[in-house]
């Protein structure tokens, strides 16, 4: 009897000890503003990052200065867009192709503004699609864009080379300033990438027409070597862009057509993601009507190779602040059998619906590479359209290929949103004739 009692006491004691240890682990997994999370205390970030990104912290690639946003994310939307958090409830749905449709008519809406699905029902089998559509139209709500981007190859030794290109996009859906503009082609948006350097690639340009509804996107490329505009296959969107660790669809973590993927919501959690600063960053207005940083602005987002003495990976953001945010975790698979990616896992901000992380597996199901986005919230100090602040992924993004131990960083020093529809971004530029004028 005595022995059994002793045994039972021992069992209980072991269980209690184990319980305390477990609780201790959970208690350790949290971050607070002011902390620095690196390889010495990576456990604190457990649960707040995708496993593969957590590995980056463990390996010393990422060093995270934890902070907290000093503004409400919803202030980064125009009031007219913020209204749609109420007015769009129940207005739209998703059809069998994954395309956005009007709930009442069942047809593809001619104009969509704001966030089409402000309320996400986690049990909805189309929840993943809806989050993806929110991402697309939410991003468009800032208006058309002209940005100059550095596409940088980075090895463990540091910066290797770069391609400069300009990116111009004309947003038809989700963009308040495009209201009333004729859209007979039923575009969702049109965009152009044009390489400006180095000399041997300068003039290469890619144009994409993204249609609303289940119409295949049209992609065109101008190749200086043949001096002509050439049609390209949509499958080439998963081809490595100029041989880098990005493909075209990796722009802003997902640049492709929503209905080309099968999206599925698989979870909701709190995540940590990179933001340029805790407070919005001030933009000025240029004489031509665009907005951007002052010309002498130096406080750009920097990456490891740009910061002397940086201890993390050369491709890691070095002066970002990492903040906690509610996130949706969404899994995506390409419908195209020729697409080069297998499973993709996205972490989306649950309020802005912008992607924060992208984890890519190959077609055999093995983990291949991870990507993260750095966001900036701009404050113009004046009404632009009908808002003054907006959240944008122009801080940059990184893709790190685990197999080759190589990364590509894409960032723009002087991103400029433009809110006058035709002043700087002219929709005629996105026609065959207009596209050819970008070419040499």
């Amino acid at each position, binding site marked *: 009897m005595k022995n059994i009692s002793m045994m039972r006491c021992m069992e209980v004691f072991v269980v209690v000890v184990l319980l305390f240890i477990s609780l201790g682990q959970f208690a350790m997994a949290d971050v607070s503003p002011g902390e620095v999370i690196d390889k010495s205390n990576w456990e604190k970030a457990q649960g707040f990052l995708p496993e593969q990104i957590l590995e980056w912290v463990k390996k010393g690639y990422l060093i995270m200065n934890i902070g907290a946003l000093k503004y409400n994310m919803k202030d980064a939307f125009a009031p007219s867009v913020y209204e749609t958090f109420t007015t769009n409830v129940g207005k739209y749905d998703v059809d069998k192709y994954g395309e956005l449709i009007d709930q009442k008519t069942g047809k593809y809406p001619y104009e969509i503004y704001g966030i089409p699905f402000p309320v996400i029902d986690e049990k909805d089998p189309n929840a993943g699609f809806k989050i993806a559509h929110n991402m697309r139209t939410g991003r468009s709500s800032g208006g058309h864009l002209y940005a*100059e981007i550095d596409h940088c*190859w980075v090895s463990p030794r540091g910066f*290797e*080379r*770069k391609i*400069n290109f300009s990116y111009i996009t004309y947003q038809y859906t989700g963009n308040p300033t495009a209201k009333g503009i004729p859209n*007979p*082609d039923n575009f969702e948006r049109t965009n152009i990438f044009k390489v*400006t*350097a*180095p*000399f*041997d690639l*300068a003039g290469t340009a890619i144009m994409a*027409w993204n*249609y609303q509804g289940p*119409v*295949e996107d*049209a992609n065109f490329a101008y190749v*200086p*070597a*043949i*001096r*002509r*505009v*050439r*049609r*390209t*296959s*949509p*499958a*080439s969107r998963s*081809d*490595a862009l*100029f*041989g*880098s*660790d990005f493909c075209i669809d990796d722009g802003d973590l997902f640049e492709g057509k929503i209905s080309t993927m099968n999206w599925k919501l698989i979870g909701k959690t709190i995540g940590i993601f990179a933001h340029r600063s805790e407070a919005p960053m001030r933009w000025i207005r240029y*004489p*031509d009507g665009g907005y951007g940083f002052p*010309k002498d602005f130096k406080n750009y987002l920097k990456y490891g190779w740009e910061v002397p003495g940086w201890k993390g990976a050369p491709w890691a953001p070095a002066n970002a602040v990492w903040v906690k945010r509610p996130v949706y975790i969404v899994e995506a698979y390409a419908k195209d059998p*020729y697409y*080069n990616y297998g499973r993709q896992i996205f972490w989306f901000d649950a309020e802005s619906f912008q992607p924060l992380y992208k984890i890519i597996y*190959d077609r055999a199901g093995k983990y291949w590479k991870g990507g993260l986005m750095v966001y900036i919230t701009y404050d113009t100090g004046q009404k632009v359209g009908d808002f003054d602040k907006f959240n944008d992924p122009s801080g940059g993004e990184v893709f790190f290929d685990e197999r*080759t131990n*190589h990364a*590509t960083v894409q960032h723009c020093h*002087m991103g400029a949103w433009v809110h006058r529809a*035709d002043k700087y971004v*002219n929709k*005629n530029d996105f*026609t*065959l*004739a*207009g596209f*050819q*004028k970008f070419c*040499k």
Partner: protein
Amino acid sequence: MKAKPWSLLMGLCCLGVILLWGGRAHAVFYLDADKTFDISGQIQTRLTFRTQDSKGFTNFELGFGNVKTHVPVGHLVQHRNLVYLEVNHDLKKIQWPWDFKIKYHILGRLYYDGIYDYGPHVFRKVGDTYNPVRDIDDFKWDVDLREYYVDISRGPLFLRIGRQNLSWGEADVFRLLDNINPLDNTFGFIFEDLNDRRIPLRMIRGSYNIGKVGPISSFAVEGFFAPGAFEHTVAPIPPPGTPYAPPVPRPGGIPIPGSIFDEFTEKPDRRWDNSRFGLRLQGVLFENVNLAIAGYRTYLDDLTPRLVVFQQFQPPAIPPILGLELNRSESKVWIFGGSLNYYEKHIDTVIRSEVAYLNDVPVFIPRINTPDPDFSLGFPQFLTGEIPKRDEVRFVVGLDKDVWIRALNKKNTFLVSLQYFGQYIRDYDKDIKMAVPKFPNSTDFISIKRYEQTITALINTKYMNGNLKPEFVVAYDPRGAVLLLPSIQYEWDPFRIKLQYGAILGKFTGMGVFRDRDQVSLTLTWLF
């Protein structure tokens, strides 16, 4: 008096070095904080060695002298040095009236091929020989404003005015609708990139985007006008004795001892009625098919010789004065045609096609262009030839597919591009020939069939994060000639290193004319 090429080359190299250190390496050099004014460029040197004995075909006699141009294996046949300097300036800071957007572009070029100064003896001697076709000093180096134009745009209207290249059509490697700009084949013909061979023309080019018209979206009209009063550039002819010169046919095959014989070229006169101009309509049908129809007048690059008798004496105690005219002004043609390309999703392939109808193409029929002398008086009487014309239909069907061959490349696709070219001559004459004599017989010319065809294939991909780019191009003439062009380029910013092998094998037909010019090239480029 032109400055010495060496001094110009050194000067531009110094400028390149300054820009490289003053600006950012492997990036554009901006002159202003707003990045509206940029300078960039490249310096390139290309060494080419013959890998095949060209004895025989390029061995010919010239004029008074006897110039043997046999180039043995291993000899340097090209040391081409190029400097490009490009300026782009967007004048957006100026408030132009009516919201016009204006920018300009200038591309300066210096080239110098050193083989005529320090190359094999056979090329150093070319300049010593009387060469009426072209002075070798003019041929071996030049500095010019290669391109210069102003872009003016407003809404759907776009104008480009100045010296520029314009390419229509869908074909690669060979040209059908893409005959607006002449080609300079004097420094490597088909072994050189097509784009490097284009000669810009001074022209006005404009387009107007009309928009959606019924099922056609992005409908636009485009036109160009290269005024003949100012612009009469045509494809140059390589001086005989240079590495890529074809041999020149002899009249009637009879060498006339002591005859005064001249070869000369005719360029179009500078006249308004010698202008090049054209119009194209293009659009996208049913959101998937790019369609274009075009019509334009231009000058073809092909050589069309004819015998010209300047003077002959009877009885012929005094030798006749003859000439072989390589006439470009006669090669003014009208070209009408159309092209299309579209993406076929079931086979994940871009299909493109082009057809061109060429009106009044000069052809070479020896009995007409270079008639045999008349012996009815008991001594040869030479006759001036004529240039006959025929209409031709040329077409191409092409397929472009990005293929994953993951066993060979897990990260990038292979671009596979196939083309089938066809050419049909209307009112065919069985004596239509290429104006190139068949070695060893200098009076026998290569026949051209009523229907000719060529098949091309290209495959390329990228490795090492885009730093290594292998490519293989092959062209096959079913009459028995094949072109092989494997190449590999390595990028190590700001340098590019390219190794290319060029070979033509098979019979003496079509492109087989140059089957004894196989070569290997090493190109080093420095970008700034």
